[in-house]
């Protein structure tokens, strides 16, 4: 056996791992009925591939080979364990029975398995941070260390979360299936929430010196693409559109030294036009369903910004109109705040300031730094220097992000020394 052949096979196996390991895992979980068993089986199958493909050649359908090999190795391993532990005998019988009825390769079944995996990882019975960790690990294939780094926590913490989640899936018997039509809307909401949470962690880190961790955003977009490939629901399409449109501004959002640049001040020539084009097409697709969900509406707002050549030339009236619809679908103080900012652009700062003051007096946004910085900005535009200063200082007290702090400090300095 030549070294050259071994190297070639290893590269092939690595490439198959990158492209197919997730769908192999998803199917093995269904066949073996257990996450850990499936992971072990997949691991063993890939090891076997390196050895056997050198002798037998690369199979025409590597994923099918890996699933079949993984399943047999798992049953073999369980049989051996059952010799020492009689209680496992029942499980071995079940596995053998299940193996009997899967003959041949079924592309559709495999795609269903990927959906089953996503919905199981995002089951509402699991704690939200467990859903995120499990999804990143099992669906995206991220290592525990990568997940820990992304969420600014430790690897043992993430590992614990994942272990507990798998145990809960087993103990409570969370089924490995795509939800029924009746349950689908709520369950899909949970999946979209996880994906958007991952995207937002990548888009703006919740604390620390760097504004973005864009590998996470890329991961979320990949997940979004996978989801609409398997389940082209309007809100899933809307979420992907929203993420692409927000991502398109990445290069313009921060200066080379990491300074925050607001949407109104961004160099639009740096916006990624391919992502914008794709995002806009997806928005149109989502809205054409006539089902106006919050993600699709937020994507529509992002699309209006993306199509505008400048802040001044932006169709603010349309944006306010979209916020009006969004408010009916998903009323929230943060959305009201964003609407107030848009109203200020359409009707002048005084109109926006009145809305923000009303919101702040209601109490929900008292601890939201963006509410205070938006108020400060409007006061500044109205020449109300003292009030602007108070609000910038309030915002400063409420944010831990370095780039945001530097931005607010700069604004405060500019108030004292207008250029």
């Amino acid at each position: 056996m030549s070294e050259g052949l071994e190297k070639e096979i290893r590269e092939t196996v690595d490439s198959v791992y990158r492209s197919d390991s997730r769908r192999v895992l998803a199917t093995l979980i269904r066949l073996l009925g257990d996450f850990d068993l499936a992971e072990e089986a997949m691991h063993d199958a890939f090891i076997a591939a390196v050895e056997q493909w050198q002798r037998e050649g690369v199979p025409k359908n590597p994923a099918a080979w890996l699933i079949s090999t993984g399943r047999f190795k798992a049953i073999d391993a369980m049989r051996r364990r059952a010799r020492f532990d009689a209680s496992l005998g029942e499980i071995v019988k079940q596995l053998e029975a299940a193996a009997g009825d899967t003959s041949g390769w079924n592309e559709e079944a495999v795609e269903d398995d990927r959906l089953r995996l996503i919905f199981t990882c995002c089951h509402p019975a699991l704690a939200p941070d467990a859903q995120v960790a499990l999804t990143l690990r099992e669906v995206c294939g991220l290592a525990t260390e990568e997940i820990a780094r992304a969420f600014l926590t430790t690897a043992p913490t993430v590992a614990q979360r994942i272990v507990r989640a798998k145990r809960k899936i087993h103990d409570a018997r969370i089924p490995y299936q795509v939800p029924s039509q009746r349950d689908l809307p709520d369950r899909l909401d949970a999946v979209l929430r996880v994906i958007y949470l991952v995207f937002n962690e990548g888009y703006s880190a919740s604390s620390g010196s760097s504004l973005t961790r864009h590998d996470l955003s890329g991961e979320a977009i990949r997940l979004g693409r996978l989801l609409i490939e398997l389940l082209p629901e309007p809100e899933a399409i809307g979420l992907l559109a929203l993420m692409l449109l927000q991502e398109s501004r990445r290069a313009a959002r921060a200066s080379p030294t990491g300074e925050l640049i607001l949407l109104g001040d961004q160099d639009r020539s740096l916006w990624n036009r391919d992502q914008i084009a794709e995002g806009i097409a997806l928005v149109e697709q989502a809205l054409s369903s006539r089902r106006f969900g919050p993600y699709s509406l937020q994507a529509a707002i992002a699309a209006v910004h993306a199509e505008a050549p400048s802040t001044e030339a932006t169709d603010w009236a349309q944006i306010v109109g979209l916020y009006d619809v969004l408010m009916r679908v998903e009323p929230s103080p943060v959305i009201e705040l964003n609407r107030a900012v848009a109203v200020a652009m359409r009707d002048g700062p005084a109109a926006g300031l009145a809305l923000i003051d009303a919101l702040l007096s209601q109490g929900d946004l008292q601890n939201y730094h963006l509410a205070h910085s938006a108020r400060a900005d409007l006061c500044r535009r109205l020449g109300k220097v003292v009030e602007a200063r108070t609000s910038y200082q309030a915002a400063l007290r409420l944010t831990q992000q370095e780039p945001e702090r530097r931005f607010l400090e700069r604004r405060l300095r500019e108030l004292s020394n207008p250029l």
Partner: protein
Amino acid sequence: MQYLLMCCFDETKWEQIPEAQRDKVMKEYHALLQDLAKSGHLQAGAKLRPSTAAITVRRKNGKAAMTDGPFAETKEQLGGYHLIECKDLDEAIAIANRIPTLPFGGAIEVRPIDFQER
């Protein structure tokens, strides 16, 4: 697979609901339980007397200690339970969501059974 549904609710709030409405809910509840018995889901269950009828037994310094009332001083108290047989958690959750007292408040804990004693 068996699950225990533990139905918790605010007893004071429940008493404030007009009697006619309470009766209607109980009729629906009774119909649901008959349904579940027929489908083979319902294994056992009971409505409990109010938490004021409870006594809690503990050990303190090695001696038996009793207190008047339920073990947890919470606004929502256990009012009844249902032991159900289901194929998986989603089926158990679907059944819990059918319980007619839910729209009036309260919570239903769904706990998987480890093993039965008898």
